[in-house]
């Protein structure tokens, strides 16, 4: 997959996708929150099968037996540019890509709000 450049185009794509997939359910949009989680706690969540289990699909440096379904979680900041962008992706990846396989960890309340913030902080640090 070609590297995405942060651009108005990318944002417009998200908007288009959002409109098409607009559900009446209000939680589709990520609520306002302070992204001030704890990265170490986030690492635990990322490796925990019963929580984020990010390692199941993503290579994470330091993680054991990673899956290879999603892209490796490295060079996150140059790829996502803002912590908020990372948060939105973890909240609901189908906004950016309607065919994304990644579960909507925020929207579907797979993680608690604190766990969500922690994992975002962790991913942002990768």
């Amino acid at each position: 997959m070609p590297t995405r450049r942060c651009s108005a185009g990318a944002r417009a794509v998200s908007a288009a996708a959002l409109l098409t997939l607009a559900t009446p359910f209000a939680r589709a949009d990520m609520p306002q929150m302070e992204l001030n989680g704890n990265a170490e706690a986030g690492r635990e969540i990322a490796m925990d099968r019963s929580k984020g289990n990010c390692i199941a699909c993503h290579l994470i440096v330091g993680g054991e037996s990673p899956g290879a379904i999603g892209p490796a979680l490295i060079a996150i900041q140059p790829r996502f540019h803002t912590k908020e962008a990372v948060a939105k992706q973890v909240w609901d990846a189908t906004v950016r890509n309607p065919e994304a396989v990644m579960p909507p960890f925020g929207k579907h309340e797979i993680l608690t709000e604190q766990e969500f913030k922690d994992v975002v902080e962790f991913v942002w640090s990768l």
Partner: protein
Amino acid sequence: MTIRRFAAGALTAVMLVALPITASWAAHRTDAEAAIATAKAANEKAAAAGIDTKETAAMIEQAQALLPARQYTKAIDIANQAQKEDEFAMSQAATAAEGQVAAELDREDAASEKVKAEEAIAAAEWARKKAASVGGEWRDTAKMIKDADTAVKTGEFDKALELATKAKHQGELGYAQAMAEADADFPSYMHPKQ
């Protein structure tokens, strides 16, 4: 007029003036009556509050009886003592009464917390059924509702409310998901490449 007669007159005059001014150390009948009146009022209040006032009432009577004998200071002392005892008893009773009211309020709060939790559980069950009706029920929803029910039974209303709210969200999300997926079909990546 002799000096003696003048001195005696002056002395009397001085005493007539000085004595009343400097006689505050000596209780007056009015002071005693005032003290007894205040003690009586406190006594009545205490009695009205359901306090046993026999002893203090007796003390007030005793003070009263001292008036004809002009033992005003002693009368005031006794009246004051009775008043103090009655007021203390009243303050004790007030705290207890407050405690009772507080306990009542707590019970009312708890009752309303319980109602809140039960309503949340009902809402969650409705949401679960709605999701189930379109084949979109999630795995854990029913168990969450069951756990919320158990929490109500053990008085853990906060926990019950939290679980029920989560379960309700699951029902809502499951329903929305099933509706959005109603036309699910071959995705773009499986289409033959042109």
